[in-house]
């Protein structure tokens, strides 16, 4: 009898050991470079907030998938009125917030009203500007009324800043985010890591991971050893581009180069002489050699662009050939502007490698046509106040990472100081056009105007350099929005 018991115990034990050996891992540690200042996407613009929380902790009415397409989110379906002004969303049933409170149409009304209220601090308040009324028809139906048709309304409702929050917990979301997503916050060791755990009460397909930790690794040089030692198993966007070869040759890791929505551009102060002359801007565009800039500023990984549009998006038109690299032609343009002897200007560079490295290449390229650039390094806070707010600059390099943001050239008072009535009318028309083909046509039109008129010199699309354990599946290849959606991430084996 005793022997029988021991044998059974041994069998059970070995069985348990065997299953645990075969069961796939369910935890993941990801490295991120910047720590989010807080975790409320409706109250801060920092991209890191969305990286951690989007689709994981918070969900919107609609959501964006890894290809940039709009998918149902908390709304399982919707209907649009014939005039394109009224959207009726049918909400999923049985959805609960992380604190146990039930989700209903009232929460949608609360979230949207809050986002476009007069004192709203939503970083993308303009997305909600055309909402005139939100009505909770019944607990599972919401009707949103707009003053004009909005071509991008469903897409806008899927963005990070449009996630749905609960009235009772909205004010505490910065520190204790309460969403409806498949993960909830476990703890946040400030400066160190943010840990999410699986939400057992999730309404949709549960996540495969039980635990996901976002660890803050601010130093690019530390990223590689962190991966090699196994402490961190994934970087959605790896900071150490120079060290990429080291992990690329290692079969334990997958290196996946994808696209972001970051148009990296040489911004021009269009109202400041001599840049108010088209010929001068054309000279700049002809003098720069994108290939050399991409090699220096993004290790050859960025895709060249000729206008303010991501090559991965529907409606993209390749306009990189409008002003080919041609020194002689550039000098002709300068002559046309009456500046055949060149001129001097400044270029303010924010503290990111693409700007600092790219700026030096551009400085040397413009020297060839007699334009002497003085490089002024600035930090982000200075960039925001001097360049962006006060428009005190000649040239700068920056990556505009917001998705679908070609409309920024029509915004009054935007730091480009570009004012083209034809372009403004086009964007106005685009805003209210719902028909897909018509929209793509207008977008192509807008791209062409920018490519020819050079309100900025278009350099390249910022790459997303994904590096993760080769056994990890389901990470996003591209960043149609900056999000580390973990809902489909799992370990193979």
């Amino acid at each position, binding site marked *: 009898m005793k022997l029988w018991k021991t044998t059974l115990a041994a069998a059970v034990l070995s069985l348990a050991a065997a299953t645990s050996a075969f069961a796939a891992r369910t935890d993941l540690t990801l490295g991120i470079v910047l*720590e989010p*200042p*807080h975790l409320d996407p409706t109250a*801060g*613009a*920092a991209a890191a907030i969305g990286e951690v929380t989007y689709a994981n902790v918070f969900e919107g009415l609609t959501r964006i998938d890894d290809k940039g397409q709009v998918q149902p989110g908390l709304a399982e379906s919707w209907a649009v009125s014939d005039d394109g002004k009224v959207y009726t969303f049918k909400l999923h049933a049985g959805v609960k917030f992380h604190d146990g409170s039930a989700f209903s149409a009232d929460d949608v009304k609360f979230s949207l009203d809050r986002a476009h209220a007069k*004192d*709203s*601090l939503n*970083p*993308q*308040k*303009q997305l909600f500007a055309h909402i005139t009324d939100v009505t909770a028809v019944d607990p599972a139906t919401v009707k949103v009324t707009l003053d004009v048709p909005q071509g991008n309304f469903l897409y806008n409702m899927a963005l990070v800043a449009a996630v749905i929050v609960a009235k009772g917990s909205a004010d505490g979301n*910065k*520190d204790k985010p309460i969403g409806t997503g498949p993960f909830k916050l476990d703890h946040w*060791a*400030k*400066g*160190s*890591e943010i840990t999410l755990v699986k939400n057992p009460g999730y309404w949709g397909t549960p996540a495969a991971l039980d635990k996901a930790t976002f*660890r*803050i*690794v*601010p*130093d690019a*040089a*530390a990223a590689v*050893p*962190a991966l*090699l*030692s*196994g*402490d961190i198993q994934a970087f959605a966007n790896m900071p150490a581009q120079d060290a990429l070869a080291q992990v690329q040759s290692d079969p334990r890791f997958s290196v996946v180069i994808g696209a972001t929505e970051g148009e990296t551009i040489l911004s021009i102060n269009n109202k400041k002489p001599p840049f108010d002359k088209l010929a001068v801007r054309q000279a700049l565009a002809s003098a720069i050699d994108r290939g050399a800039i991409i090699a220096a500023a993004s290790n050859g990984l960025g895709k060249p662009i000729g206008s303010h549009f991501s090559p991965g998006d529907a409606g993209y038109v390749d306009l990189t050939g409008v002003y080919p690299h041609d020194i002689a032609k550039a000098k002709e343009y300068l002559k046309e502007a009456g500046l055949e002897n060149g001129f001097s200007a400044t270029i303010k560079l924010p503290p990111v490698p693409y700007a600092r490295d790219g700026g030096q290449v551009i400085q040397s390229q413009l020297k060839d046509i007699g334009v002497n650039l003085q490089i002024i390094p600035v*930090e*982000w*806070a*200075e960039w*925001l*106040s*001097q360049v*962006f*707010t006060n428009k005190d600059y000649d040239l700068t390099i920056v990556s*505009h990472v*917001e998705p679908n943001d070609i409309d920024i050239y029509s915004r009054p*008072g935007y730091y480009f100081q570009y004012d083209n009535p034809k372009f403004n009318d086009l964007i106005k028309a685009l805003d209210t056009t719902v028909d897909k083909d018509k929209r793509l046509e207008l977008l192509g039109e807008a791209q062409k105007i920018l490519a020819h008129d050079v309100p900025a010199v278009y350099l390249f699309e910022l790459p997303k350099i994904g590096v993760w354990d080769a056994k990890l599946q389901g990470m996003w290849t591209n960043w149609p929005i900056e999000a580390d959606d973990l809902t489909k991430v799992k370990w193979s084996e």
Partner: protein
Amino acid sequence: MTAYLLKRLTIAALTLVLASMVVFAVMEILPGDPARLMLGLNASADQVEVLRNQMGLNAPLLLRYLHWVAGLLSLDFGRSYTYSVPVIDLVRERIAVSLPLALIALALSTIIAIPVGVFSASRQGRAGDTLAMGAAQLGVAVPNFWFALMLIYLFAVWLRLVPAGGFPGWSAGIWTALKSLILPAVALALPQAAILARVARSALIEVLNEDYIRTARAKGLPYRAVLWRHALRNAMIPVLTILGLQFAFLLAGTIIIENVFYLPGLGRLIFQAITQRDLIVVESIVMLLVAAVILINLLVDFSYAIVDPRLRGRQ
């Protein structure tokens, strides 16, 4: 002694007041708006204005300064703009990393530096001295972030003895937490030890040339006893001065090492707060550090009295 103490305390208080003015003024002059930083490129000017009002940034300068100082006096260090938690909570979390790290590094550096300094001084000009001081020169010259990376590759990537970085927190167990502080402490300690060893050596050599050392030797004391008991003790004053300075540096000046090991220390908090223009965090923490440095200097002054009895009776 009381007069001396009073004088020291007055100087300390004046330093604090002066520091508070300088810190506040510098953060005001720095271009950059915390509200715009938080709301980003797409926020309208009106929104930024609303947030500025909420954060109290639109109040007159003098009023804000006085408000801040009044808070400090009642030990209220304010609330972080970006994290929106009390500054003191942030400091408490970070000091739990920075203080142990600084202490371990300081202990390591002392344990290495004093014997090396004594060894070198006692063999002045000979091969051993040249070798030790050459090593110290190397220790000062090697960039510490490079040295840190080499340590990571050797002990974390190759041998897998310790984690490559990060800090699991003290709640994860003392040994687990200590393990993640070993490499950073070594990386911090070595350059400090190199400096300290050189200071110890030159201080000792100076003392060894004094008459009383010859007397001690002449009365028949063995060289070792003279060296460790008579000479070293008298050479301690410059060594203690350097130690005090190094401790102040190790508390908050270790941003590079904190970045390489991604440790949530005080240095990184201040750096982050400066880049995000989290004015209140920078101002309050700098004031805390000023207070800490003043305190350390006072302690160093008192320790002089311990190693040199002559200083005790002086008025």
